[in-house]
């Protein structure tokens, strides 16, 4: 028999679940440091992480209410992947939609940009 495992989770963009995980990390660490309030949350989000910064901000507003981060500022540091052109030697920061070298047009395959972490918290 096929079985069904139920999961009571709602939300249709994965930034919501990323925001929930981010909030859990922030709240855990705030509690461990006896914080009464979180004033600022600083994240590092790579441009290849698959997370949209706008959607994450939107989701953050939804998950912060009724927590000690209710008035926290969300600071997002975006990082970019690195690309190196094997044909002409040019190195550059690549966006998600860069598939070729801006100097010579040869195909390039960006590396990195996968960062997705909570860097620091400002608490009181």
């Amino acid at each position, binding site marked *: 028999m096929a079985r069904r495992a139920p999961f009571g989770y*709602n939300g249709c963009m994965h930034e919501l*679940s990323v925001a929930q995980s981010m909030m859990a990390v922030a709240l855990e660490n705030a509690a461990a440091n006896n914080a009464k309030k979180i004033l600022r949350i600083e994240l590092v989000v790579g441009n290849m992480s698959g997370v949209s910064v706008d959607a994450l901000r939107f989701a953050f507003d939804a998950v912060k209410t009724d927590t000690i981060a209710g008035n926290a500022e969300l600071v997002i540091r975006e990082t970019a992947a690195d690309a190196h052109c094997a044909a002409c030697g040019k190195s550059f920061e690549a966006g998600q939609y860069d598939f070729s070298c801006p100097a010579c047009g040869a195909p390039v395959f960006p590396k990195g940009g996968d960062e997705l*972490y909570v860097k620091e918290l400002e608490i009181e």
Partner: protein
Amino acid sequence: MSRTILIEKKILEKNDIAAARIRQKLIADNTVVVNIMSGPGAGKTTLLEETVRRLAGKINVGVIEGDIATDNDARRVERAGAEWVVQINTGGACHLEAGMIERALETAPRGMQLLIIENVGNLVCPSSFDLGDDWKVVMASVTEGQDKPKKYPGMYRKSHALVLNKVDLAPYVNVSPGLFVKESLEVNPALKVFLTAATTGDGVDEWCDWLASLKKRPASV
């Protein structure tokens, strides 16, 4: 007085830890885990039905079906002869997470050689979540159009193989499978490519041979 504390903690750490536990659990039976991702309707379940039919009796295959709702897909794969099938309903979430797989695996039998996970049909979100898989496969259908690899590059970059399905429809939708593959390889040249028509069985044998040949990947970072 406010103070700043340095954390440097991965946001998806809990997911990654669950994924590591899945790898730990499945290493005992050397179970190879394949995570199939695609936009809705590319033909994942149809391919899995054909796959299970071909591999049943040769290797022990388990299937986890991820859908927002319904257990249609699990029923289809079960009818095709899979030994063990579980349906996960995410109840709205657009992707599977490792914790869901971990719970689904609680009822898994011992001795599975291959575990195929059909992710929720979605071209963006699933690739952000490690499911404890060894191999990631992006599936596409020619009817989506050959601009999709470069519109949704994330999933193509993260995958090890591409199954380009519904090649039987290529003449009707004015899409060239060759060009689709070329566009895909310009995003990720390492993709192992399969051209299939799951409904007629074309190309499915090659895909099954590849699946049967897969080894568990050594746990990386």
